Structures are given as C-alpha cells and as structure tokens.
C-alpha cells in the first residue's frame, strides 16, 4: 500500500530553491533513507513534507493525518517529567497509554525525572518515544540518531523495524547506519536545484527582483 507519493517536487530554503524534480514513493512496511551532503536540503525537504512550509512546485500526496514528524530538537519541556512530556503528546494525538513507549525506548527508570536533568542521549530517546505515542503510520525523521550511543541506536533501529513490521513506513535523513538493511537509500545530490539561467525554477526570492 502506498503511504506517500512525491511528484516532481521542488523545495526552497530562505526563498532559494535547493531541490527540484524530486519524485519518490513510500509504501507501507518500507523505510527510505535520505542521503546527501550538508546543505543539500534534507531538513528542508522533510519540513515541506511535514507541511511546515509550502513546496515551490510539484505535489505531495498522502492520506490525511498519517504523518508524525520528529525534528532536530525534541520539543521537550525541561520542568516537566519524562512521563508528563510523553503523556502530553499522547493526549494531543488522542492515543492511549505511554507505557509501551517508555518500555521500548528504555525510559522506565527515568519516567519521574525532570527532562532538564536528562543527558542529551536520554532526551533524544524521549523525543523518539514521542513518535511511538503518536500512533501515526508515517514517521518523518530528521537525524534521529544524533547524540545516541551505539546501544540506543540499536534500540531505535528495533523500534523502527517493529513499526515497519506493523504496517508503518519511515522516511529519515541520517548519516549513520541504523542496521536497517532493508531500507532503500535515496541520494539527493542529483536533485540539487540548478540556477535559473540553466533552466532551474525561479525561487520567490528571484521573483521579487524580476
């Protein structure tokens, strides 16, 4: 089953086109890993897919309310405890218990701790546990493994695999190997936007001076 289809997409960062002519599909049970050098537009693409910014051209089609987005920052409130942070997102998404997510990301011992007293890796694990309580099938992840140690990367890899096995899908930008050998890799370098004089699309920045 197709969860996400991207057709001839062009995205902009700060009004300048960074990617163009990008097309791919993501099916249930599959993971797609985005690769590319810094600045190629991985984060911009993921933000566009999450609906935080409009695409410059092309279409994104997916069923409504299927996507859970995890950004660079985890969106944690430092004075709330681990359980309170997670419970908040569970209530926002209208899903039930946070226990399985705590268990899966090995946070049970920390559940009463305030988020401000967590280490960077523990915060990241809490941020990723948030995905588990959203109950959404398509995960869009931006560098999910930053500041995770090897054991936590394995833990997270297992969580992703379980999510895929349950019929979910994942789209992630990452530099390191999650151990997901079945994941497809999409290199974004060939889709780098050309300058307008070589036939690339003009960004809104160019239009302002046209």
């Amino acid at each position, binding site marked *: 089953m197709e969860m996400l289809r991207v057709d001839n997409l062009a995205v902009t960062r700060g009004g300048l086109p960074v990617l163009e002519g990008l097309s791919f599909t993501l099916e249930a049970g599959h993971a797609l890993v985005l690769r590319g050098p810094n600045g190629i537009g991985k984060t911009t693409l993921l*933000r566009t897919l*999450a*609906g*935080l*910014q*409009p695409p410059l051209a092309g279409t994104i089609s997916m069923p409504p*309310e299927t*996507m*859970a*987005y*995890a*950004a*660079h*920052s*985890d*969106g*944690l*409130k*430092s*004075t*709330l405890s681990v359980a*309170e942070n997670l*419970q*908040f*997102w569970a*209530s*926002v*998404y*209208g899903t039930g218990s946070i226990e399985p997510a705590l268990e899966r990301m090995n946070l049970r011992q920390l559940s009463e701790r305030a988020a401000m007293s967590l280490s960077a890796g523990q915060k990241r694990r809490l941020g990723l546990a*948030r995905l588990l309580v959203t109950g959404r099938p398509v995960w869009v992840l931006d560098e999910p493994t930053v500041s995770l140690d090897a054991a936590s990367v394995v833990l997270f890899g297992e969580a992703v695999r379980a999510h895929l096995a349950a019929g979910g899908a994942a789209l992630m930008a990452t530099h390191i190997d999650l151990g997901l050998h079945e994941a497809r890799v999409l290199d974004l370098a060939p889709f780098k936007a050309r300058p307008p004089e070589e036939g690339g699309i003009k960004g809104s920045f160019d239009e302002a001076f046209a």
Partner: protein
Amino acid sequence: MIALLLRDLRLAVRAGGGFGLGLAFFLIVVTLVPFGVGPEGQILGRIAPGILWLGALLACLLSLDRIFALDFEDGSLDLLATAPVPLEGVVTIKALAHWITTGLPLVVAAPVFGLLMHLESTAYFWMILALALGTPALSVLGTFGAALTVGLKRGGLLLSLLVLPLYVPTLIFGAELVRRGAQNMDTNVPLLMLAGITAAVIAVVPFASAAAIRVNLR
C-alpha cells in the same frame, strides 16, 4: 486541547514559569505611583482607574513574549503545528492559559490594589468588572504580537511596540467604565464597548495569530 492548557498552566507554576510575576509587577507599579504623585488621597482617587489599568496593561505585557518563544526555541511549536490540533486552537488555548496565569490574578487582586490607590468605594465593583471583561482581550491581542515576533531574537521590545497601540481601545473604555461607575453615571456605553471589543478580538485575532505563526515557521 485541554492537555495543552494543562501543560501550559503546569509549566507556568513550575520553577521559572513566571506565575505571579505579573501580579508582583502590578503591585510594584501601583505602590510606586503614590511616591511619585504624592500621598493626597483625592488626587490618587481620581487617577486610580487609569493607573490600575495601565498597571494591568504593563503586567500583561511582561509575560507576552514567553507565549510562543519558549515553544519555538525547544522545537515544540514545530511539533504542535504538525499535530492534529488546528493552530488557531493552539493560539486560543495559549491565550487562555496566559489569561489564567496573568489576567485572572489581576482581576482578583484589583480590590487590594484599589485600596492602595484610594479608589472610591463606589468604583470597586466596576474596577473588577472592567478588568474581568477587558483583560481577556489583552491576552488574545498579545498572542498576535507574540506570533509576529516569534522567530526574532530580542523580539520583546518590538512586541511591546506592536501590541501596546492595539491595547488603546480596551484601555479607553476600561478606564472610562470605572470612572463613570465611580461617579454613578450611566455605564452602559463603555460597558458594552469594552465587552464588544473583547468578543471581537477573541473571534478574529486567533486566525491572524495562527497565520503569523505559519509564516514564521517556514
């Protein structure tokens, strides 16, 4: 939505949340005025409605820049924008939380502060009514300024410049309601205007704030 309200209230009460700051600021403003103006009760009584309203305005302003800035910095605003709640609803709830932590304490404490200002005894009822009707508009208008300046470093001063002029109608009719009430004059017009402004602000401004946030998140 209720989860968001509870979270915001909980954050405000926890350490560093700033609950009570507005009230303390209000108290200091009101205490300082008699030092500046002199202790004559008659003069103080006459300017009391205006000073109390100005104090409420400034106290409200003090915590406005935190409404969205904190959520923006830790990334939760991005996540809220992609969550299954409309951004307009998020804005409204944030304004409500701001009012409960800032406006409501001012309403409750107004009689005490009126005492400090030699407010006339006939005016207490009207002072509380005017603040109760007017302060929600201050919070909601504040979300608009906070939404416009959300991505800016040091946006606090710009926020004040943007928001204070929008507070003028509420200030005019709020203070006028108390003045007329104190002198047993007809209070219908300022009362209805004040309530009408608040109702219109609550109905319209959340949409503008949500639009401003969407632009700022791009």
